[in-house]
């Protein structure tokens, strides 16, 4: 029973090694703004970051080498089926983040829960909406009102004078 690979493991290993390598390079680049030497009074501000960055780059190159030339069976990172499930979960989260940034977390939460429950959970719209609103109300009670921790609000709340 071989499942179709959406992304092969080797591809993902290469991509990850490149990404960590880039992160290491960024760390090195950011630290040369400071002194990277070992002065009279021990290591300067850039000493550790620079070397950490350099080691990350080296480690990433090694991982890249393993991924490109190492012996590994043709293993799978995600199958098409798994990929679909993950995306079905991750994309609504992405939507939630974007909506929250513009409309605030309360509306973001209601819309997100509504969407996920109706289109993925197969619940009725009334129940989904009720749950979304219930969660939003609980958020409002617990965070800004009881514990005085304001949440991200959007234009609607600002207009209503809520905080």
């Amino acid at each position: 029973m071989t499942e179709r690979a959406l992304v092969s493991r080797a591809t993902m290993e290469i991509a990850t090694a490149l990404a960590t390598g880039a992160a290491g390079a960024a760390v090195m680049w950011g630290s040369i703004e400071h002194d990277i030497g070992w002065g009279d009074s021990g290591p300067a501000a850039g000493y550790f970051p620079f070397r950490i960055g350099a080691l990350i780059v080296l480690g990433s190159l090694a991982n890249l080498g393993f991924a490109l030339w190492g012996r590994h069976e043709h293993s799978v990172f995600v199958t098409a089926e798994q990929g679909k499930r993950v995306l079905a979960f991750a994309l609504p989260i992405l939507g939630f983040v974007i909506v929250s940034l513009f409309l605030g977390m309360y509306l973001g939460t209601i819309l997100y829960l509504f969407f996920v429950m109706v289109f993925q959970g197969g619940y009725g719209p009334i129940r989904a909406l009720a749950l979304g609103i219930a969660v939003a109300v609980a958020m409002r009670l617990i965070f800004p009102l009881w514990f005085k921790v304001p949440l991200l609000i959007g234009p609607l709340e600002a207009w209503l004078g809520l905080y």
Partner: protein
Amino acid sequence: MDNLGSLFHGFGVALTWYHVALMLVGVLLGILVGVLPGLGAPNGVTILMPLTFTMDPVSAIILLTSMYWGALFGGSTTSILFNIPGEPSSVATTFDGHPMAKQGQAVEALSFAFLSAGFGALVGVIVITVLSGWVTRFALRFSSPEYFAVYFLAFASFIGLAGANPVKTLVSILLGFAFATVGMDTISGSLRLTFGFDELLRGISFLIVVIGLFGIGELLLTMEEGLKFEGVKAKVSLSGVLATLARLPRYWVALIRGSLVGVWMGITPGGPTAASFMSYGLAKRFSRRRANFGKGEPEGVIAPETADHGAGTAAMLPMLALGIPGSATAAVMMGGLMIWGLNPGPMLFIERPDFVWGLIASMYLGNVVAVVLVLATVPLFAAILRIPFAIIGPVIVVVCFIGAWTVGASKPDLWFAFFFGLVGYVFKKLDYPVAPLVLALVIGDKAEDAFRQSMLMSQGSLRIFYENPLVGTITTLAILLVTWPLWAMLIERVWGVRTARVQPVDLE
């Protein structure tokens, strides 16, 4: 004995109906803030602080510390149920706690966590009671080289050289260290690796990384496997809790080792986070059941929890006697002490014995109250797992992002949390261990500060780490632990004994 007399006096102060009521309220509020990742003990204490202005200091500190105990217990709940540690010190609880919950042993995992935590806390208070004077003098001997050696020891006991993929482990640790250097550098007073972004001024928040790597990352993995939370069939009842209590004594080695590590790290400035990682690392290395670690082994819950609470409790002593707060919450409380007109310091024990011993007595009572209350909530929390995943999954997502927002009320943090969620998913699938990354992030900057302070002191000479017997011993222990695989091999060769064969500490 002098201290025991004082303690009985303290019980006299703490054991009033009013104070017991305050403990109940404090613990309950604490559990609430501890369970929600966006809130923590510091939030709770900040909120209650204005109320305490009108109370007398003993009542005030009882309320605040009870809240702290409650929050510590509550924090383990989300670690076990959803793989979301609410505080740095409960990260290690996820390693075996969450697998247990997934296998339908949520009740056992929670009960083990709470009971062993209570045990650790009790040992911590007993040490405070018996050794308060000695501990204070001992803590004063710690300077930057000793601090560094303690962090090094904690790291050494958790990180094994014989990991499954050493290069990936290394990259993961180094990324953690790199994240830890972001922000203001205490030693030079300049900003590092912020790349001009204001959001990076305060550094990369532990909570956001953990919410992403552990919380969101875990949810993505769960979705991929097409799993719902299993274990809903497990019977949830108080008798399950009691059955666990009966099984606890079997793990006496883990309990005692955890308490010792915890108390030691609480007195030395290692703190609860380092303590829990260290205890887990040691348990995994030396336990007879080490092969099961990471797959849902109760000992893997007991070890970090005992140490975490042992350290959290023992750390109250340096706070009172020296004025060095061992945690964010303790720091907020210290501000409170000043407002109530008390000066933390060695004289507090002499000037205000009623306050100090009332507090210590309340730590015994408060922890007992906390264990009982939190055990009573186990069926409630375990019941959350019966909610269909289509509902609870998205709700957890929302709670995660609220947590990310509350860290600094900054919009890019939401993106960071999402990003770290993807990183957590990919890293887990490709066998990049994430736990060492978190440990490096939490203690990396403190270790760097301590190292560079030491170098300032010695004008660049590394000999300072062997300057006196104390720092020399800790450094040697740490080096021994780092190189343990070599020693184990040697012992086996020479004596032919099968020693604690080093299991690759599979850091997940």
